[in-house]
């Protein structure tokens, strides 16, 4: 019995040795045991463009520690690279929990990387903030899981409903849907098709394409042949560029009123900069834009600090889409800890279920499975873009909020061809 315990201890010491670089990076000799927050971030691999979220985590940690920590304890981040591969996720989270003894967990980015961790946290009954995983908890239904992202309830189907609301208001009857053959896009397209059906629209074209497609001319011709009035596109950055260029080259019918929907890419500085005016007229989803209805001193201060760090690290200098919500994840955890005065998962979860939390993106209240009670996915129309200067996107008026109505800052400019030319 004794030797077994010694062996166990030995293994734990070895593991701590392995983990040393990560821990030494922070302040390991604090008098009080720090509160540990564990996360995996895709620093490398195909999802590496989401790594600017880490700046959000770090800004939050610095803010909290500058204010004296949580419950009098310092906050320490333990972050590992999942290399964008779901295969690495189980071992990483087991290490975060079993070796690093983290009190709070942040999920990896998106549904595919988060899926492997869901059964684990459910089985072990752990507290986790989900990062951008669409409908991430709809299967596991874990009651200690909370989304930092604004997808809202029933998100698998509804998160892009704003696009279809706009289409409905325009009297659109025929719609075309295309999507990249990847998890997020595929779910978005499937949800979109359901909503279109619900609104009595005819889906005249519905096709998926492989992730590395670079030429969309034939697909655009096929879409034109279907004569739609709106085109819902769920794409990833590379294809977003290719599709927008393809439309410019092949041309599109004047009947098309709305174009866009769920394109990933036009939220990021890289694409905004490279495509510039070619993006005019696009109606696309977003999570945050610097429009008057969303601008607050808190978020402004966040971006004032984010930008210099991002520039230094060579990541997206705008950072509108992901980083604020990584900061929000920290704020949610902080609220749960201070609100429940503990790091006990059940108490933290109970607090978040019972109380709405103030964050830099507004007040958030949660459903039983940790979705935002109210969907707050934005549909913005890109307008008046001139040249490829990124700074213009920090000003209002270029990413006009059309939906939800509570945040609206402008009316849809339609048809697409006209809005494009403006």
């Amino acid at each position: 019995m004794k030797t077994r315990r010694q062996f166990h201890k030995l293994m734990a010491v070895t593991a701590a040795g392995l983990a040393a670089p990560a821990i030494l990076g922070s302040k390991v000799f604090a008098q009080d045991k720090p509160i540990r927050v564990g996360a995996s971030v895709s620093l490398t691999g195909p999802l590496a463009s989401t790594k600017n979220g880490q700046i959000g985590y770090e800004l939050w940690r610095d803010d909290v520690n500058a204010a004296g920590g949580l419950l009098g304890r310092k906050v320490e981040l333990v972050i590992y690279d999942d290399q964008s591969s779901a295969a690495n996720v189980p071992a990483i989270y087991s290490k975060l929990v079993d070796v690093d003894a983290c009190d709070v967990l942040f999920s990896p980015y998106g549904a595919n990387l988060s899926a492997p961790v869901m059964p684990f946290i459910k089985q072990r009954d752990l507290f986790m903030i989900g990062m951008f995983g669409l409908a991430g908890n709809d299967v596991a239904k874990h009651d200690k899981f909370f989304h930092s992202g604004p997808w809202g309830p029933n998100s698998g189907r509804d998160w892009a409903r704003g696009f279809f609301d706009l289409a409905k208001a325009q009297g659109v009857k025929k719609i075309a849907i295309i999507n990249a053959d990847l998890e997020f896009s595929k779910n978005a397209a499937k949800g979109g098709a359901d909503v279109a059906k619900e609104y009595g629209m005819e889906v005249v074209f519905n096709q998926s394409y492989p992730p590395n497609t670079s030429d969309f001319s034939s697909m655009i011709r096929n879409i034109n042949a279907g004569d739609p009035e709106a085109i819902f596109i769920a794409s990833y950055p590379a294809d977003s560029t290719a599709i927008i260029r393809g439309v410019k080259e092949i041309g599109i019918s004047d009947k098309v009123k709305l174009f866009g929907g769920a394109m990933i890419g036009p939220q990021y500085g890289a694409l905004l900069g490279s495509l510039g005016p070619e993006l005019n007229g696009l109606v696309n989803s977003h999570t945050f834009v610097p429009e008057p209805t969303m601008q607050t001193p808190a978020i402004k201060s966040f971006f004032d600090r984010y930008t210099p760090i991002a520039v230094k690290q060579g990541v997206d200098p705008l950072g509108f889409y992901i980083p604020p919500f990584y900061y929000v994840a920290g704020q949610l955890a902080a609220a749960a800890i201070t609100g429940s005065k503990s790091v006990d998962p059940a108490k933290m979860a109970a607090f978040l279920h019972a109380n709405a939390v103030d964050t830099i993106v507004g007040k958030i209240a949660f459903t039983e499975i940790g979705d935002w009670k109210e969907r707050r996915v934005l549909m913005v129309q890109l307008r008046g873009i001139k040249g490829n200067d990124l700074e213009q996107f920090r000003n209002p008026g270029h990413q006009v909020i059309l939906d939800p109505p509570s945040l609206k800052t402008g009316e849809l400019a339609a048809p697409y061809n006209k809005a494009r030319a403006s």
Partner: protein
Amino acid sequence: MRKNSLVFLAGIVIVLALGFLMPWLLRNPFYFFAGYVVLQYVTIATGWNILGGYAGYINFGAAGFFGAGVYLSAFLFTSFGLPLPLCILAAAIVGAILGVLMGYLTLRIQGVYFAIATLGLVVVLETIVHNISGLGGASGMAVYGPRPPAWSPGPSQYNFTVMVVIAVVSVALARWVEISWIGRGLRAVRASEDAAECSGVPTLRLKLVACALSGAVLAAAGAPYPFYTSFVEPVTAFSLIIGLNAIAMPLIGGTRTWVGPVIGALLLASVQQIATVTISSELNILFVGAVLIAFVAFAPGGISDLFGRKKGRARL
């Protein structure tokens, strides 16, 4: 030879016993998560080496076989509730069939073409999975594994034990191939295909056997994976890193004997496990790439060759 076999057998028994006992001795589940991955790579490297090392035919498509095992087992479990051991067996059979198919298509020509064709296998299988909605397509498929049996304390420990068994069986299979007439024939093929054929070695049939065994082991390595991640999706199931490691590990360890891939996998997979969870950077992958180049360039015999292998002389 007798003595070696007895030592080997004793080793197997010890490793198996550890596989079943460790979960009760060691409380921290992390070691089973990490250990699972290491053992998975031991199996993959061993399977790859049966064809790549003994016969000298490079398979870039290890991920294709692995992914086929992953998806088959996920499908059989979620649709028919087949128990895990049967899923593994089914994966091994399908892997063997796939191997023979690949071999039959390309092995009659030069080895390079085989290598290139295996690159394609991954793409083709991945494309097929993408387009079958029953397998979840690109969105993937959640697999909630069965409760572990009473003799195992938890799911991660159970997966670990299962992987121990698969790895041990694979290594034993590889060793048997190596010391039997099959292994001698394959090494003859590797040295000179014509000379082997003219010495009475049925080269094509032998290569097909190697393809089948290698494919079976690679696919079996993938079979428990859905239960490890609770989720399968094509990008990770057919991940390039699997193909990379399948080649890098035997090459680093040494391709001539069964020991090489085991050493290479233990070493590289452990380093990768430690590296992923500690220093976190592109530099990790850079490191693997550089190590690979260094070994190919300066120590083509791998680690097992560096430590002067006197045993390699004739077993009389």
